[in-house]
C-alpha cells in the first residue's frame, strides 16, 4: 500500500513535469509564440526585443527557462506577460466559481445519471427503455455550449425567469448563488447524465446475469432489495471510476465552455481569456492546475476501486 502510494506520487510528479515541459516546448516552437516579439509590438527594434527577452529571462537555455517558470508558479511569483497580474492569485480568485459550478453539476449528474441508468435497466427492452436511451444519446450528442446558449436564451433572455449569467458568491447570498448557478449546472450535467445512464444500464444488465444475483433471488429476497443491494451496488463500481476522472477534468478547467457561455469568471474562463493573447504564464498555470487534479483523482480512484471491489489488488 505504502509502496503503491510512493510510486504513484513519483509518477504524478513526473507526469506534471512532462505536461508543463510540453506546454512550454509547444509555445517556444510556435512562430507567433515568442512573447518578447509580441510584447515589444510592431515598431520595436531588435534592441527592444532583446531587452524584454532579457528581462523575462527568455535568453536563458530552454530547460532553465522552463524550470524558472515552474518554480515561479510554485513560489507564487509568476505574472502574466501582458496584464502583469499574478497567475496564482488569479487562479485562486477563480476557484470558488469553478468549484461551485463543478460540485453542483457533479451532484446533479451523478444523481440523475444513476436514476436514468436504473430506470432504463429495469425497463430494459420496453418502450420506456428505448425512450430513455434515445434521450440519453441526444444528451451525449449535444454540444455543451449549444445547450448553454439555448437555455440562456429561453430562460434568461427571452423570459427572465433566471438571471442572465454572472456569479454571486455563496458567502454573500446563498439563495442568489443557487439561483445564478442553476442553469450552468444543468448545462454542464446533461452530457454526463446521458453518458452515465448508458454505462450504468449496460453494467446493470451484465450484472443481472451473474450467479450471485441468482443466489440472492433464490434466497427469497424481494426484487427491490436484489436490485438495490446486489445489482446496483456492483454496477456502480465502474461508474465511481468514471465519476472521479470526469469530476477531476471539470474541476481542472474542463468547464471552460460552460464558464464562457454563462460569463462565470472561473479558472476555465481565465484560461480562455489568456489564450486569445497567447499569454503563456496563465496558460501554464491553468494547464498544470488542471493536470494536477486529473493525476490526483486518478490515484484516488484507483485506491477507491480497490476498496470497493476487493477482487482488485493494488499492485
Amino acid at each position, binding site marked *: 500500500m505504502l509502496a503503491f502510494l510512493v510510486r504513484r506520487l513519483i509518477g504524478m510528479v513526473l507526469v506534471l513535469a512532462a505536461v508543463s515541459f510540453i506546454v512550454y516546448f509547444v509555445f517556444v516552437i510556435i512562430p507567433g509564440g515568442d512573447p518578447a516579439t509580441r510584447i515589444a509590438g510592431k515598431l520595436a527594434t531588435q534592441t527592444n526585443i532583446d531587452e524584454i527577452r532579457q528581462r523575462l529571462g527568455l535568453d536563458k537555455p530552454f530547460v532553465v527557462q522552463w524550470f524558472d517558470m515552474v518554480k515561479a508558479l510554485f513560489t507564487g511569483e509568476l505574472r502574466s506577460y501582458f496584464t502583469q497580474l499574478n497567475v496564482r492569485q488569479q487562479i485562486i480568485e477563480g476557484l470558488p466559481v469553478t468549484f461551485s459550478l463543478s460540485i453542483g453539476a457533479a451532484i446533479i449528474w451523478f444523481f440523475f445519471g444513476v436514476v436514468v441508468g436504473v430506470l432504463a435497466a429495469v425497463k430494459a427492452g420496453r418502450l420506456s427503455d428505448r425512450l430513455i436511451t434515445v434521450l440519453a444519446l441526444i444528451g451525449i450528442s449535444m454540444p455543451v455550449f449549444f445547450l448553454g446558449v439555448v437555455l440562456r436564451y429561453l430562460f434568461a433572455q427571452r423570459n427572465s425567469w433566471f438571471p442572465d449569467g454572472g456569479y454571486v458568491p455563496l458567502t454573500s447570498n446563498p439563495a442568489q448563488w443557487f439561483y445564478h448557478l442553476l442553469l450552468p449546472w444543468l448545462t454542464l450535467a446533461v452530457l454526463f447524465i446521458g453518458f452515465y445512464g448508458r*454505462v450504468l444500464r449496460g453494467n446493470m444488465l451484465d450484472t443481472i446475469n451473474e450467479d450471485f444475483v441468482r443466489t440472492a433471488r433464490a434466497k427469497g429476497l424481494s426484487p427491490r432489495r436484489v436490485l438495490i443491494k446486489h445489482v446496483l451496488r456492483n454496477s456502480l463500481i465502474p461508474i465511481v471510476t468514471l465519476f472521479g476522472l470526469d469530476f477531476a477534468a471539470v474541476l481542472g478547467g474542463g468547464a471552460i465552455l460552460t464558464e464562457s457561455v454563462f460569463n462565470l469568471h472561473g479558472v476555465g474562463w481565465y484560461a480562455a481569456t489568456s489564450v486569445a493573447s497567447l499569454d503563456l504564464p496563465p496558460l501554464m498555470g491553468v494547464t498544470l492546475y488542471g493536470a494536477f487534479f486529473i493525476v490526483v483523482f486518478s490515484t484516488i480512484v484507483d485506491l477507491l476501486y480497490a476498496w470497493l471491489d476487493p477482487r482488485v489488488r493494488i499492485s
Partner: protein
Amino acid sequence: MATRTDPTELTLDTAAALAAEEEAVEIRGKSPWALAWRRLRRNRFALLFLGVFLLIVVACALAPVYASSVAHTTPDENHIGENVTVGGKQIPVITKGGIKFVNGQTEFHPGGVPIGPQWWHARGRFVLGADKNGRDVAVRLLYGGRNSLVIGIGSSVICSVLAICLALIAGYYGGVLDWLITRFFDLIWAFPVILLGIALGTALQINGFHHFGITIQPGSLWIPTLVISYVLIPYIGRPLRGQILSLREKEFVEAAVAQGASSARIMAFEILPNLASSALVLFTLIIANNILTEAALSFLGAGVQLPDPSWGNMISEGQQTIITAPWLGIAPGISIVLAVLSLNVFGDGLRDALDPRATVRVEH
C-alpha cells in the same frame, strides 16, 4: 423446416433429421463481415441514422452546387442593403429600422435585424434567413458543415492510424516500447484537452507552422484537424493494445512465426485484420467526438477562423444576435446534434452487429 421434429424429443435420430434438412439448402460458409452485415441490416434504427448521416454528408458536399444554383450567392457574400422578393413583395435582407404607423398606432421597428427563415417562399434564397452581415445562413450552414465534417473525419483518420500503429508496436513488442507507449497514453490522458487545443489552435492561427519541412498557412483547415487529432489517441490505443496482447499469444501468430514471417508481416496480415472490427466501431464513435471538439474550439475562436464558416463558429456568431435572430445559433446547433447523434446511434449498432458481446467503448 417441415421435417423438423419437436425439439423436446431430441433423440439420436434428430441429428440425422437435421442433416437431411440442411442438405436441402447448400450450406455456405459466411464470413464474419457477412454475418455482421446481416445483423446490422436487421437493426433498422441504426440504418436509419446511417442514412441521416450520409444525407448530411451529401448535402454538405453539394454546398457549392446549392450556393450557385439555388441560393445564387456564396458563403461570404454580403447582401446588406439588398431586397429579396418574397411572394411578390420586396423585403429588405436587413431591416433599416424606423417608425411605422399601423392603425393609428406608432410601431417602432429596430434596424439591423436580418431576414428570418423564408423556407421556399423566396425561391431558394435565404431558406434559413440571413445573418447580421446579410449572408445566406443556409449556404453558410452547408459550407460550415463541410468544414466541420472534413475536420471531424480527417482528424479521426489521423488519430486512428497513429493509435493503431502505437498499439501494434506496444502490444506486439512489449517491454520498454510497451512501457513508453503506455506512459505516453497516460500523458495525453492527463492533458486538459480543450485548454491545450485552444492554446495550440490560437497560436498556430497567427503565423502558421513552418518547422521540420512542413508548412501550414494560417487559416488552413489542417490546424484544427491536427490539433484535435491527438486528443483521442489513448481512447483507441488502450483497448486495441489490450486486444493485441492477447492476440499475440494465439496459435495462428505462433504458426506465422514458425513459418518465418517477419514482424511487420505478422502485424499487418495476422493481427491487424483481427482488430479491424473494434477499430471500425471506435473510429465511428470518435468522428462524433471530434466533430464536437471542433465545434467547441471554433466556438471559442481557436478552430476554423471567420469568415470561413463552421458549425461551431456559427453558433458563436449566433449567440451575439440570439435575441433578435435566434435561428442563427439554433440552425448550426441542430446540425451538430443531428450529425453527432446519427454517428453515435450508428456506432452503437455497428458495435452490436460486429460483436454482440464487445466491451470496447469510447468515453466522452
